[in-house]
């Protein structure tokens, strides 16, 4: 393939960027087409597949990102003292409502959870996982919330459409509390 030589270019860009780069951005910088970028990414992924390689490409937030393989998770944690993102079960439930039902207002969230959500929403806003996405055109013009790109990157999704679907069999009355949502 004559564009094969661009493989190193893509790798260098992804390495320097750190955060996800869209294929459009890569294509613009390299002055080529997005299809070419896709093929180059595929070639890179092929290179990284071997067990000897420590990094790989992942597709998140509608872009590509160079990351360490999860096999080396514990290894990397020895290197960096990363502040782990700890979300309470209340925060996770509220985040689920926003993620799956966005855009959504505070009162809509409260109707589902049965409790006030003010504290939790503010916490989630602080983490940058959600943001204000305008106002609803109903009485009082309440603020509506949605998830951010940081949410996609942190949870490893390429887009909102990629959120896991509910299992078909909802009659599974397995006590969700038993599976510790820590």
């Amino acid at each position, binding site marked *: 393939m004559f564009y094969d030589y661009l493989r190193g270019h893509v790798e260098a860009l992804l390495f*320097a960027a750190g955060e996800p780069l869209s294929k459009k951005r890569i294509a613009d910088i390299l002055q080529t087409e997005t299809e070419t970028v896709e093929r180059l990414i595929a070639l890179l992924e092929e290179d990284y597949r071997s067990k000897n390689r420590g990094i790989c490409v992942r597709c998140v937030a509608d872009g590509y*990102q*160079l990351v360490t393989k999860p096999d080396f*998770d514990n290894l990397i944690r020895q290197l960096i003292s990363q502040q*782990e993102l700890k979300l309470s079960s209340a925060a996770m439930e509220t985040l*689920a409502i926003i993620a799956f039902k966005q855009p959504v207002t505070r009162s809509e969230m409260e109707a*589902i959870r049965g409790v006030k959500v003010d504290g939790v929403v503010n916490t989630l806003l602080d983490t940058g996982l959600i943001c204000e996405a305008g106002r609803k055109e109903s009485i009082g013009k309440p603020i509506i919330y949605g998830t951010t790109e940081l949410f996609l990157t942190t949870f*490893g999704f390429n887009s909102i459409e990629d959120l896991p679907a*509910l299992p078909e069999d909802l009659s599974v009355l397995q006590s969700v509390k038993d599976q510790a949502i820590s």
Partner: protein
Amino acid sequence: MPNYNIKIQDFEGPLDLLMHLIEKDKVDIYDIPIVDIAEQYITYLNAMKEFDMDVASDFLVMAATLLQIKSRMLLPKPPVESEEEQEDPRQMLVDMLVEYRKIRIQAKMLTESLATALGYHQRKPMQFPDIRKKIKPLSFDDLIDSLNGLLTIQEHEPALIERQRFNVQDKMNKIIDLLEKNNHSLEFSALITNNVSRSEIIASFLAILELMRLNRITISQARPFSTIFIFLREDMTDVL
């Protein structure tokens, strides 16, 4: 009354507690035995109060809702006039619970996604030190002007903060003293107008409020705007 094995745990909200009760008894969510569930729910709230746990208002609203549904279920149904089916009074509750359960499952799925995603580590974007900082073109006159501005700043007299001369604790002791000497009762006006300066009046007033809070004294007034009397409490619990 059946012996409910109540394990006191911290429920996030009324729906959380309801889900627990329903799942515990393996109740069919589409056919909730309202009478039984309402009774368990309220028993639980009472237990929470007994253990001195704060029962948030949301829980009480749900208790009221459950009782309302229960009474609607128990009342004899009016004759059906139209072809429509009678609305099940539990329907709203069922809808809420189904929705809530969906969210709980989705939250769990998100937690798993998060755990997986956290296995991948990324780099921070590279920083390129920008050595050439842009400096606004300024003239020598600008420098002289700003120096002038600094030199003409007036010297302020340091502000004098007066020491608080009247100590609320002292006033409290004084008031108790006065009450004891005066047959355990005094007029409010007597206590206040004795004082000369405003800060002393304030200290006395605060002392009275504090003594009331500590249940050392009580006050009473026959009618609005009549004399206020202050009484020393006999059943003193030594709190001061």
